[in-house]
């Protein structure tokens, strides 16, 4: 539960879209793996056999595509574009995650690493959607095109699967204080100041910051 003085990092819409995206993506991982590795075919037994699993995968794909479109529209402004020189500086320091850095470059609402993750999800997510739809309905399409959809779909999976674990780690134990941003939306001031100092300053300067227990008519949401 939020305490007085905590800062609102995300609104309800953001969190709902995030978990739609995450939930559908994870279900796609699991069902996709069930088809990719014959040893994992048993995952289908919870879905009425492998045929059921295939349909769960296909229709979850639709939810994923919808979530991806919503997420892209919602986060493009904050996470879709790099801002120089801060983002470049951040990348050079690897955000201070890998070696000691005295002063980490100031990050806005999302740091350069998060932007890279966001853009990867958008790019590979779109690739998964397009290749997946063609794989679902390949009849009548040129064979030379259909053939390459499978390795492209697998490529997108390799990238998303690997990035997902980085994201999972940094969203939980790797960066304590982050998870509440996507649970109830309230984070501590210390966390915001450490992770997204520029954003905090800008929001305060614009008077848009929502602080728990304080009124703010300027506060904006997505």
């Amino acid at each position, binding site marked *: 539960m939020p*305490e*007085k*003085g*905590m800062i609102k990092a995300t609104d309800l819409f953001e969190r709902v879209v995030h978990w739609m995206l995450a939930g559908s993506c994870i279900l796609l991982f699991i069902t996709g793996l069930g*088809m*990719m*590795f*014959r040893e994992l*075919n048993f995952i289908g037994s919870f879905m009425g*056999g*492998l*045929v059921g*699993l*295939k349909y769960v995968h296909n229709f979850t794909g639709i939810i994923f595509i919808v979530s991806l479109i919503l997420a892209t529209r919602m986060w493009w402004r904050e996470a879709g574009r790099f801002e120089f020189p801060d983002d470049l500086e951040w990348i050079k320091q690897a955000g*201070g*995650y*890998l070696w000691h850095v005295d002063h980490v470059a100031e990050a806005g609402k999302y740091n350069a690493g998060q932007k890279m993750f966001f853009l990867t999800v958008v790019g590979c997510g779109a690739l998964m959607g397009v290749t997946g739809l063609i*794989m679902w309905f*390949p*009849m009548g399409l040129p*064979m030379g095109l*259909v*053939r*390459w959809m*499978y*390795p492209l779909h*697998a*490529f997108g*999976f*390799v990238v998303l*699967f*690997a*990035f997902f*674990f*980085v994201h*999972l*780690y940094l969203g939980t*134990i*790797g*960066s*304590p*204080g*982050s998870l509440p941003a996507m649970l109830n939306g309230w984070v*501590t*001031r*210390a*966390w915001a*100041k*450490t*992770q997204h100092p520029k954003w905090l300053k800008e929001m305060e300067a614009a008077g848009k910051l929502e602080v728990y227990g304080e009124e703010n008519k300027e506060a904006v949401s997505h």
Partner: protein
Amino acid sequence: MMSASEVIKLIDTTRCTACRGCQVACKQWNELPGLRTKNRGSYQNPPDLGWNTWTLIRFQEHVNEKGTFKWLFRKDGCMHCTDAGCVKVCPSGALYHTEYGTVGIKKNLCIGCKECIAACPFEIPRYNSRTDKITKCDLCLTRLQANQQPACVKSCPTGALSIGPKDKMIAAAYDRVKVLGGDANVYGDKFLGGTHVLYVLSEKPEVYDKLPKNPSIPLSVTVWKDWLKPLSWIAGGGVIAGSLLHYILHGPKRPYPEADQGDHAERGE
């Protein structure tokens, strides 16, 4: 006649008269319906393989360099590859190698994903939208298991079709080619690990309609199954291991203590 070791079905196109007995026998034995088709001005009927047509005589009018006209008849159907693209991609194990080296299909396992269609160099697997499953020739597996010849072989009146142990059939094919001379050649033993259907062709392979000169497993299948598939768990596992290592060696990134200001700010966790 047929022990449980590798067999080869030999198709000697030079002996085929295009009576299409095999086509009918296949339909009859496998209870495949004949669907109404239109006259397209060719004896080749139906026009293509389909979920209800696992084998088909292709009719081709051929004029050679000397200007001589010739009918080419080729019995098309599954080649029963040793390196079978279809088996390699099938996610359910519906397509599999039988005890005879042929490629069988367990209908109940097929999920209708159509992955095998794009993986076969010969465009053999066909989709039945009514059952949502793939069909193709299984070289009459149940007949082989009952010591019987495949229905198409049994029906062939000219001896163009025969079946037997692998080595014997390869030798027979080469003997026949020697007798024929000219451009005659054996097709099937030199690629895809050797197929379990072998042709004796009277012309060079490239002369025939819909017959790839040098079939191979599509590059897309190799990239997908041999490179990216192992990479997926290597990358995933590597990242998990890396994250744990980071947690232990470097430690998580906590909010800086100096960012703690005011009485209501707290440390992360």
